[in-house]
C-alpha cells in the first residue's frame, strides 16, 4: 500500500510539475508577446508612422516654402496662412480627424526677406496631444537656400488605430495560444491520469504477483549465467537459515551438498540441455543440517536470445522424506510386531500345552508332599518334592506371564498404574539377572498417579530396555571380569518440578560412542555382534513412546554405561 501511495504521490507531483511547466510556458509566451509588442512592434509602428508623417509633411512643406520664397508676391502673410490652413484641413479618412494638428514656422530671417519673426506663424491646436512633431526644412524653390523649419504636429490617431488593431490581433493570438496550451494541458493531464490508473493497476498487479510469489512455500532463486545468486525469495533464505544479504552474490553450489552443480561441465551440460527438471538436491543449512529440495531450473534468455541467467524453483521435500522414512520405520515395526504377535501366539499355545503336564506334575508333587507329610518323612525326597512344587509354581507364573504378554494387543490407551506392567516385565528378568550374577536394583515409587498408556506396550518398552541393559553389562563383564559389578538400576518416580513421571533404566555396561548414540534409535542400527541383534528394539521403543505421547531421552558414555529415560504425563485429576 505504501508503494501504491508513493506512486500516486509521484503521479500528483508529476501532474503538478506539468501544470507548472504549462503555466511557465504560458507566462513566457505572454511575456514574449508583450515584450515583442513593447520593444519591437510598437517602436517600429511609431517609427513607420513618423516616417510616413515626415514624408507627407515634406510634401506639404513645399507649398509653404513656395509661399515664403515669394518675396514679391502681395499679401504674403495671408497666402502663407491660407496654405497652412489648407494643410490643417487634411483629415484621416478612417477617423475623420485632422492629419496635422498644428504647424509652427521658424524662419531664417537672414535668408527670408521679412521683418524678424514676422512670419513665424503657429496655427492649429495650442496644446496638441498625442501627436508626433516633425521638423521639415523649407528650401527656397529658386535659390535652394534653407528658408527655415516648419514644425508639423501630426496626429497619431492613424498609428493609434493601427496599434489598436495590432494589439487586438496580438491579444487574440495570445488568447489562442493560451487556449491551445490549456487544451494541450488538459489532454496531457487526462493522459497522465489514465497513465496513472494504468500504472496503479500495474503496480497493484505487480504487488499481488510479488505477494503471491513471496507467499509460495517454494524456493525461488535467480542465478547469474555463472551460477551466482542474483535474487532469492525470503522463503529460500528462511529455510536455509540465512538472511538474503549473506546469500546474494555467492555461488549456488556453496550451499549444496552436491557442490559441482552449476559449475564447469555441469553448467555446460545445463546450458546444452537448457533446463534441469525435478532433481533432488540437498542444501546445507547455516546450522549444518540438510534441506532436501526437489529442484528445477531453466535458462533465462534476453530479447536477443542470449543466455542471461538461470531461474530455479525448489520444493522443500525434507518433511516428505522424513515422512517416507517414518513410514518405512512403521512398516518395519509392523513386520516385527507381526513376528512378535506370531511368537506370542506360539508361546501362548506352548504355555497352554505345558500347563497340562505341569498341572499333573503339580498334582503328583502335592500328593507326594501330602504323603511325606502324613508319614512325617523328612528325608531328602520330601525336600525335593517341595522344590518340585516351587519350580512348578515358578513355571506356572512364567507361563501366566507369557500368556498375558501374548494376549492380542488392542492398542487401547487407558489410565493405569504404571507399576503393574513394570513389575510384570521385571518378573521375566529378576531370575535371569540373579543367575547371571547381575545386580538388578529396583527403586520404584509405588505411590504414583495414573498415566494414560497401553500396559502391554509399556511392558514391551521395559523388556527392551532391560534386555539391552543385560547385554551391555554382560558384555562388559565378559571383557573386564572380576572387579566389575554389573548393575542395572530401575527407577520410577515423579519429577517434583513438572509433575511428570520418570521411568529410568540405567546400566554401567559398555555404553555407546557419540555416533552410536546419535543413531541408536534408527531402525536396523545395532552395535551388537552379527546375529545377536536385529537393530529394531530401540526403534520400536521409540515408536511406542511417541505413540503413547511420552518422551524418550537417551544418554550414554562409551565404557561407562547408558541411561534411558521416559517422561510420562500423569492423568489429570478430576
Amino acid at each position, binding site marked *: 500500500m505504501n508503494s501504491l501511495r508513493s506512486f500516486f504521490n509521484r503521479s500528483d507531483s508529476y501532474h503538478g510539475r506539468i501544470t507548472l511547466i504549462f503555466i511557465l510556458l504560458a507566462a513566457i509566451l505572454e511575456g514574449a508577446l508583450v515584450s515583442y509588442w513593447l520593444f519591437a512592434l510598437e517602436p517600429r509602428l511609431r517609427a513607420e508612422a513618423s*516616417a510616413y508623417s515626415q514624408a507627407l509633411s515634406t510634401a506639404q512643406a513645399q507649398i509653404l516654402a513656395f509661399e515664403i520664397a515669394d518675396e514679391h508676391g502681395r499679401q504674403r502673410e495671408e497666402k502663407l496662412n491660407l496654405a497652412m490652413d489648407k494643410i490643417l484641413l487634411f483629415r484621416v479618412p478612417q477617423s475623420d480627424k485632422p492629419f496635422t494638428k498644428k504647424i509652427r514656422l521658424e524662419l531664417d530671417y537672414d535668408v527670408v526677406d521679412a521683418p524678424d519673426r514676422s512670419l513665424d506663424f503657429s496655427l492649429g491646436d495650442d496644446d496638441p496631444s498625442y501627436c508626433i512633431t516633425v521638423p521639415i526644412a523649407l528650401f527656397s524653390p529658386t535659390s535652394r537656400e534653407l528658408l527655415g523649419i516648419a514644425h508639423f504636429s501630426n496626429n497619431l490617431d492613424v498609428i493609434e488605430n493601427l496599434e489598436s488593431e495590432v494589439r487586438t490581433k496580438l491579444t487574440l493570438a495570445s488568447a489562442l495560444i493560451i487556449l491551445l496550451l490549456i487544451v494541450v494541458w488538459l489532454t496531457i493531464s487526462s493522459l497522465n491520469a489514465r497513465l496513472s490508473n494504468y500504472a496503479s493497476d500495474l503496480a497493484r498487479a505487480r504487488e499481488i504477483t510479488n505477494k503471491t510469489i513471496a507467499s509460495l512455500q517454494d524456493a525461488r532463486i535467480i542465478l547469474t549465467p555463472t551460477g551466482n545468486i542474483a535474487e532469492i525469495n525470503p522463503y529460500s533464505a528462511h529455510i536455509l537459515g540465512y538472511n538474503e544479504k549473506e546469500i546474494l552474490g555467492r555461488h549456488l553450489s556453496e550451499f549444496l551438498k552436491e557442490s559441482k552443480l552449476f559449475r564447469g561441465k555441469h553448467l555446460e551440460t545445463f546450458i546444452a540441455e537448457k533446463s534441469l527438471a525435478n532433481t533432488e538436491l540437498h542444501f546445507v543449512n547455516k546450522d549444518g543440517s540438510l534441506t532436501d529440495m526437489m529442484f528445477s531450473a531453466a535458462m533465462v534468455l534476453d530479447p536477443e536470445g542470449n543466455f542471461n541467467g538461470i531461474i530455479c524453483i525448489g520444493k522443500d521435500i525434507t518433511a516428505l522424506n522424513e515422512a517416507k522414512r517414518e513410514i518405512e520405520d512403521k512398516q518395519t515395526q509392523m513386520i516385527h510386531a507381526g513376528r512378535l504377535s506370531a511368537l506370542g501366539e506360539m508361546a501362548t499355545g506352548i504355555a497352554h500345552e505345558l500347563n497340562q503336564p505341569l498341572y499333573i506334575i503339580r498334582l503328583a508333587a502335592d500328593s507326594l508332599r501330602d504323603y511325606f507329610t502324613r508319614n512325617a518323612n523328612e528325608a531328602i525326597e520330601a525336600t525335593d518334592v517341595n522344590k518340585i512344587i516351587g519350580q512348578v509354581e515358578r513355571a506356572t507364573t512364567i507361563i501366566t506371564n507369557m500368556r498375558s504378554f501374548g494376549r492380542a494387543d488392542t492398542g487401547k490407551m487407558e489410565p493405569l498404574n504404571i507399576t503393574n506392567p513394570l513389575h510384570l516385565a521385571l518378573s521375566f528378568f529378576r531370575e535371569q539377572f540373579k543367575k547371571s550374577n547381575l545386580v538388578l536394583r529396583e527403586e520404584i515409587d509405588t505411590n504414583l498417579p495414573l498415566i494414560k498408556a497401553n500396559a502391554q506396550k509399556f511392558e514391551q518398552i521395559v523388556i527392551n530396555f532391560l534386555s539391552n541393559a543385560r547385554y551391555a553389562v554382560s558384555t562388559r563383564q565378559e571383557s573386564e571380569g572380576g572387579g566389575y559389578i554389573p548393575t542395572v538400576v530401575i527407577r520410577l518416580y515423579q519429577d517434583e518440578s513438572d509433575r511428570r513421571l520418570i521411568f529410568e533404566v540405567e546400566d554401567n555396561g559398555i555404553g555407546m560412542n557419540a555416533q552410536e548414540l546419535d543413531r541408536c534409535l534408527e531402525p536396523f542400527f545395532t552395535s551388537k555382534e552379527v546375529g545377536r541383534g536385529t537393530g529394531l528394539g530401540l526403534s520400536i521403543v521409540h515408536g511406542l513412546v511417541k505413540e503413547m505421547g511420552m518422551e524418550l531421552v537417551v544418554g550414554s558414555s562409551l565404557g561407562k554405561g547408558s541411561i534411558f529415560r521416559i517422561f510420562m504425563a500423569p492423568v489429570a485429576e478430576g
Partner: protein
Amino acid sequence: MHLIKGKIAIGKTSTWLCICSMLLICLVKASVAGQDQDTHSARLLHAGLDLFPSFLAADQQIADKQDNDGNLVIYIVHHNDSRTAQIVATRLLDIKKIKGVPMKVVIVRDDDDDLYSLQPAGIFIAQPHLPHLAAVVKYGKQKSIITFSPFAGDVTLGVAGSIAVTARILPQVNTTTLADSKLDLKPFFLRIASRYPEVELN
C-alpha cells in the same frame, strides 16, 4: 543500351540548359541591378543638386570665397562621366547666385592638376566612387570649403556635406570634416542637418 544513352544525352542537355538559364537569369538580374543602381545614383544626384546651394548659403564665410572676378567658383568633379558633370553644371547654373553672389561652375576630373589651380568656393562630386576622392576631400579641408557629394557612403570617407535620405531628404554634415576645414555653417542650418558621426541630440 540505346535507351540508357538517350537518357544520359537528355540528362546532359538538361543540365546544360539549366546552367545556361541560370547564367542568363544572373546576367539579367545583374543588368537590372546595375540599371537600378544607376537610376538610384541619378536620383541622389538630383536631390543633392537641390540641397547643395543651401550648403553654400549656410557657409558664413561664403562671401569671402569669391574669386578675383567676384564669382563663387564651384567645382563639378568627376572621374570619367563628363556628361553627368555637364548636367550638374547646367542645373547649378540655373540658380545663378548664392546670397547674391554669381556662381561660376568649372568641370574638372578628379585626377586633373587644374583642380588645384583655382580658388573654389565649393566642390560638388558628380560621380559615385570617385577614385581620388581622398585627395579632393583633403583639398577641400585645406581651402576650408564645402566638399559635397550626394552619393551614399562618401560622407563616411570625409566629404563635408551630403544628403540623408529617409522619409524626407535632409542635409547631412560630417562634423569632423567641418571642424578640420574650419568651416563655419549657420547654426540654423546645423539644427536641421543630419550629422555624421551621429550624435545624441538633447
